[in-house]
């Protein structure tokens, strides 16, 4: 099944690299200390690298959104109200229990359904909530003069920064879980190879 067109694979590879750089530089900024330790990136270069990478990410994100609309790949991301929660529970039950008992995949991959319900909701949250939030708050930090000056007596800069860091944390969490769930294909490496070749390897059983 040809599920991942070339543009998507290129975007995804670039995106992954950018996000990883952003996480590393972001963490080294947040946890700098007098003696440069675990993180090799010094504060000054971390700031520079983080800013440049973030600008590239913003562009690549816009590309992702535009292409999803233009190519129809966006249809896989449309959430349906019908059976939303029961489908989620079904998928979670499969990961937590069913797959160990040799049960069949409740939502097998097809051209109409690339993502199972759990994948879909995390991808939607990440791509359409997480990334916009982190990009907007990041721009606010990059251009402090456009941020709200004060809200509830607290500096807007601080609120923006907390929003940015918190979103960054959830995206890092997503990354870890994402990489792990990508080992849950037919074989642990199947999905990764799919993302390289474009072809989804069908489940064996």
């Amino acid at each position, binding site marked *: 099944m040809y599920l991942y067109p070339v543009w998507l694979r290129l975007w995804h590879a670039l995106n992954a690299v950018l996000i990883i750089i952003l996480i590393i530089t972001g963490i080294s900024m947040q946890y700098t200390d007098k003696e440069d330790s675990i993180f090799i990136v010094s504060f000054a270069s971390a700031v520079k690298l983080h800013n440049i990478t973030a600008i590239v990410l913003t562009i690549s994100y816009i590309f992702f959104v535009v292409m999803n609309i233009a190519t129809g790949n966006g249809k896989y991301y449309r959430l349906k109200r019908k059976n939303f929660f029961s489908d989620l529970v079904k998928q979670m039950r499969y990961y937590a229990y069913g797959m160990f008992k040799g049960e069949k995949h409740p939502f097998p991959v097809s051209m109409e359904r690339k993502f199972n319900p759990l994948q879909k909701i995390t991808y939607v949250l990440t791509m359409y909530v997480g990334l916009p939030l982190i990009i907007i708050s990041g721009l606010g930090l990059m251009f402090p003069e456009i941020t709200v000056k004060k809200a509830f007596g607290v500096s807007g800069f601080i609120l923006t920064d907390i929003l940015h860091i918190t979103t960054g944390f959830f995206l890092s969490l997503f990354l*870890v879980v994402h990489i792990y769930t990508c080992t849950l294909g037919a074989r642990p490496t199947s999905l990764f190879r799919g993302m390289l070749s474009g072809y989804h390897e069908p489940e064996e059983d």
Partner: protein
Amino acid sequence: MKLLFTKVLVFISLSLVPSISVGSGRAVVPDRDPVTYISPFQEENLNCFKCHGQEKYEYTNELLGTQVKAIMCLEHIIKSEDFYASNHRSFSCTDCHSEDYSIFPHSGELRMELKYTCLDCHGGDDTFSSFSFEGIDADYRESVHFKLENDGFSCWKCHDPHTYRISIRESKNLKETILYNNNICLHCHSDYSRFHLLTDRDEVNLMKTHDWLPDQASHFRSIRCIECHTRINDSILVAHQVLSKDQAVKLCNECHSRNSMLMVSLYKFHSKEQRRDGFLNGIILNESYVIGANRNSYLGNASMLIFGIVILMILIHIIFRIKRNKLKEG
């Protein structure tokens, strides 16, 4: 009611100031509010302010019997509201200047008038021990500016005799204090007529010499020049030992780190307990947020916990998968 409230506040704040006592016949803590403050020398000083208070002054030409109007040069103008908001607002002009200045034209000899130094009045005075004038003086003597004393540099060059008021010690608005402090330095370092009065060096473009600092404008609004240019001295509140440029702080980590040096300089007076790790206090009470220094331990711990749980769940899942594969094979 409001008055009562103010009085209570004043009482509370006074009882917090450790150094109230009466020194040299004056109350050491005069009326703090420059708006309500009324100097005992109000009338007397008017004799000087009528000429020195604005750009224009008048005098009578006694030979011709005419009224002459003239321009007061900028350096000789003292705004009365600034003077009455300054530390030395309780003074009469002639406490520091000769009585003979009441005569105009001022006699040429007055130009040679000896000026007091800070230590003349403050040296060895217990009333001001919390300011540690002697310590400041010693540090100043080590500073780059001291070698300019023969060219006319003195404490007065940074502490304008007519407008200087303490700021950081009582700061309620850090940004305002920072602006006030930096203007002291910029008075010379961005005005080359003043700069050249003291040195033959070429002009220094501060924007250029600090272009390694990202978002300069924002930094200069959030930190004082002395943060980077002085050696911190624990026994005085405001470090006075201005070092040469090659000893200035250039490493971002000095500020952008957990044990940021700002904690012992700029934020020294903002209670240490507040900042120790307090989320609410540390963040809400301070207008500045320094990336890397304001690490929030609650958010930090919470995120570590969540991360740990997720990793644990993944590990458990992996174990179950391995078991299942063994079962399938076996």
